[in-house]
């Protein structure tokens, strides 16, 4: 292989119909409320950890729907429950995070 000093770049494009949704589907089973998130960002705006760690429940939900591994972000959550207080759709976000942690644990 010749080293040209440059190489193919990785595409950031997501193929929506090829995304692996198995984890998200399992989360939907235990937390059906996850489906009605409308991405308003109230949870992230009020999050006590977001400013320092980038924690965002909105991102966790959306990125799971795009097939990404969100395990690392979950570890930033302090489980304070502030996000559950503000969700206009009444999603039990704190419980959702715990359920997701459990799914990651069981998938080990």
């Amino acid at each position: 292989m010749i080293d040209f000093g440059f190489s193919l770049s990785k595409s950031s494009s997501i193929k929506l119909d090829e995304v692996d949704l198995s984890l998200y589907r399992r989360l939907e089973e235990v937390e059906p409320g996850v489906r009605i998130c409308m991405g308003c960002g109230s949870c992230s705006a009020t999050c006590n950890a977001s400013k320092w760690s980038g924690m965002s429940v909105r991102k966790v939900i959306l990125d799971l729907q795009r097939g990404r591994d969100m395990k690392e972000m979950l570890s930033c959550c302090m489980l304070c429950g502030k996000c559950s207080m503000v969700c206009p759709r009444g999603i039990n976000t704190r419980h959702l995070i715990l359920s997701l942690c459990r799914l990651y644990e069981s998938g080990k």
Partner: protein
Amino acid sequence: MDNRKILVIGGGVAGLEASKQLLRLGLHPVIVERSERLGGHVAGWYKLFPDMRPASDVVNQLVEGVKGATVYLNTRVAYMNRLKDGFSVMLGNGTGLHCRAVLITTGFRLFEAARKEEYGYGVYDRVITNSDLEAWFGGEADGRIPDNPRTVAFVHCVGSRDLKAGNQQCSKVCCMTAVKQAIEMKEKFPDAEIWCFYMDLRLFGKKYEDFYINAQQQYGVHFVRGRVSEVSEDIAGRVVLKAEDTLTGHPVKLSADLLVLMSGMLCNRDTESLAAMVRAEVDSDGFLRSRDNICNVNESNRPGVFFAGACTGAKTVPETLAEARAAALAVYNYMSGND
């Protein structure tokens, strides 16, 4: 001479409801409809949100209500001249009329989806519009719709909120129509994944948000905030969409078996020339200009010329019907010298 004649231009739901009310108020509406049937766009629709009532029920009920009115089908207005006490009108079929007032209920036309060339309407085999889908729901055959689609995509705001396409208005009803049609598709094809690509979801009306929540919760419809920028066709004949998922900040691609374009609403082409005959004005949005947009939406700037329905801007069916009733009252008041 019958001095109670009111010319109603357009036999869609606005013209029908207004005529029904005019009859009740003791006036004599003359409905002039350019097509061969009454009911306008609604007559081509399958079910109406939010109650999912068959559109044909509504149209039949309205048509029933205009018994006693004079109706000319397949007829256009050739000219109208203002007289001292009304308007002299010549119809395309050679009939001459003398009317006391003119009610314009010419409605809207759908944006021609083919003009958004990047979406490939009329070029790719699996691309249809909201009205094509509705006709198919109503039983019309459509070879573009596959037997068992696995993936169906809806694109909101096709030719609306689009300055470049010459229509910066929000067409208002299409977000709700997309959610309604997404649910109907999921009901027909429970195994299909349904995707809606939107810029903003504008679900303003009674029970609309219920539809949205239902679409998410019960039907698992996916909503992606991003406008589709390009559609192509792959070797299997599926459509390939490119958009940005603006909430994740990533470009996304989707291969779909069917693409539904939510064509927006524009003012009808011949409305402008009709308005010119009675010197009514056209607004900057291309729709007719009301005397004002708060208190006198039904009235033009000219005495004796009234509007109802989507000729002044995009409207839902219940809004149109409410406006039609208000217009009938405005005409009545004008005739009685109460205005």
